[in-house]
């Protein structure tokens, strides 16, 4: 972290700053010096072809993967987010592409897994869960997203794909204090539910959170996001204002001429 002074103080408004991130999986170079900034109150859409490195970059930022090189600052604070727990402490909420839900656990348990509220006094000492509080807060968090479930005690296995995805979004929103990262948050959702999710994302950004959305739905991203970052071959090749760019241009950059560099 030798460039500490330079990167940190660039602007307090920069919520996520990833510079020169490198990540290899064996011989596969998933990230070759990816650089990205997301500002507070901004929705940045990360687009790119399959294998461009979008999910890998998101996983590095949220601490799920340790990068092989590069620097990361969150809200001006240089971090080596090598643990997901650390990223949570920094206020990062994540929707993973595979949703990362424990299918045998209940809806409420999934929302709180890893950050379970405990009772008071001896209950706390024994690690006894405060399930009433979990249920109440879970109901409220799901309600915001328009999710109505008959019971919060049913295992997630019994939920439909769309319900599971909405649950993962609700969990990320519940814990995100400063940064939200969403990897294909609406892939399994119908248009109406997608609309609710995007409204929620906009509201989060209005509240000052930085939002990083990975999506294949580029037309949708052009209307939702403030800026679009295009990845190709493990690098961010272009960052543009969503308002001033055309779909065809984005796709052109995404697919890229082979001379890209």
């Amino acid at each position, binding site marked *: 972290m030798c460039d500490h002074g330079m990167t940190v103080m660039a602007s307090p408004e920069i919520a996520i700053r990833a510079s020169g991130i490198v990540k290899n999986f064996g011989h596969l170079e998933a990230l070759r010096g990816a650089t990205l900034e997301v500002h507070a109150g901004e929705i940045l859409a990360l687009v790119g072809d399959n294998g461009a490195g979008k999910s890998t970059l998101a996983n590095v930022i949220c601490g799920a993967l340790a990068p092989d090189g590069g620097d990361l600052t969150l809200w001006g604070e240089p971090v080596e987010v090598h643990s997901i727990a650390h990223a949570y402490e920094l206020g990062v909420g994540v929707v993973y592409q595979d949703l990362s839900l424990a299918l045998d656990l209940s809806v409420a348990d999934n929302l709180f897994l890893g*950050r379970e509220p405990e009772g008071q006094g001896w209950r706390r000492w024994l690690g006894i869960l405060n399930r009433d509080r979990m249920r109440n807060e879970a109901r409220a968090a799901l309600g915001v997203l328009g999710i109505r479930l008959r019971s919060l005690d049913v295992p997630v296995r*019994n939920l439909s794909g769309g319900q599971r995805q909405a649950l993962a979004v609700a969990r990320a929103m519940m814990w995100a204090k400063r940064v939200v990262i969403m990897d294909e948050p609406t892939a399994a959702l119908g248009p109406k539910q997608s609309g609710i999710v995007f409204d929620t994302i906009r509201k989060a950004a209005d509240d000052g959170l930085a939002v990083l959305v990975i999506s294949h739905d580029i037309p949708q991203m052009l209307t939702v996001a403030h800026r679009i970052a295009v990845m190709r071959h493990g690098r961010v090749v272009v960052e543009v204002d969503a308002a001033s760019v055309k779909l065809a241009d984005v796709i052109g950059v995404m697919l890229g001429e082979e001379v890209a560099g």
Partner: protein
Amino acid sequence: MNSEEPLDLARLTEASIRAEETPQPEILEGRLAKARRSTALWIGLAIVAIAVVFGLITPSHSFVKPENLLAIGLNASVIMLLGVGMTFLIGAGHLDLSIGYSLILASVIGAKTMVALGGTPEQVQTGAYANLALAITAGVIAAIASGMAIGLLNGLLVTRLRLSSFIVTLATSGIAFGLALILTSAANIPYIPNELQDNFGGAKFERLIPYPLLLALAVGGVFWAMLRKTRFGMRTLAIGSSRDAAARAGIDVNRHTLKLFVLMGALVGVAAIVDISRNANTNVSGHQTDNLQAIAAVVIGGTSLFGGVASIGGTLLGTLIPVMLANGLVQMAVPPFYQYALVGVILILAVYFDQRRRERSS
């Protein structure tokens, strides 16, 4: 699904995200819970059926006499203790095959400690321990520590070397058994204090309930609460359900897994003390099928070998089935060896049903 109005009870039964163009399938409400309930029901019925059949065919219906039923409970107590720990491990997606031989090692170390600290060799041999309380306390601690040490070894090998718990615990059973035989030259350890048998292993609370059974049920109760009510239990099932999801929720999966193996080891140590208290002797040549019986009890009880779903109550009930079979067969003057074959058959059936259930629900 034209549901713009707020929360409405009738609507809730249909229960879903309110998506217009892609209606979500109705929630398969409580199906898993029902399946689990029916598992408990199924074991309960099996137990009643076994009791009725043996009650009818044993000479003078001796099988269903209260003292015999309590004797069955007593005989099940060691496997109950092991099964309780195994429920947590299997619930987290692991397995421990080493428990039987680890139990032998723990009982040998516990017994040796008692004999060594009891007093002069003469005192110990005549059963007049000079330092009875010290000897028993130290022996109990040593047995539990021995079990925990094997558990720690299992846990470290599984989490640090990322080996399958199946192979690791198969290997450590050999290590534990070998150590036990080396320590004893394959002979049992005599002169364990009689007080252990008189006041605990062979004694009954209110002249009715055998203390080992009482202990096993109390431990079962504590672990039931732990599984259902605590953060530890919830995280155990989360890991069994999806290791990745648990890790991404910020849980230190390796650390938790290590704790589970050590906990299993502690219960092995307790079971070892119960074992030597009941028999006033070690049983170096026994316990070969303890792992089979404990795993069978757990799976029969509705805990899923796939992890994520576990039931302590089911395990405690599941433990009874093999013991009832053995008890009934002995009373019918049938060699008790049939019991082992029967347990094997029952285990295969239980695993098959577990798999069917999983396939249906996904």
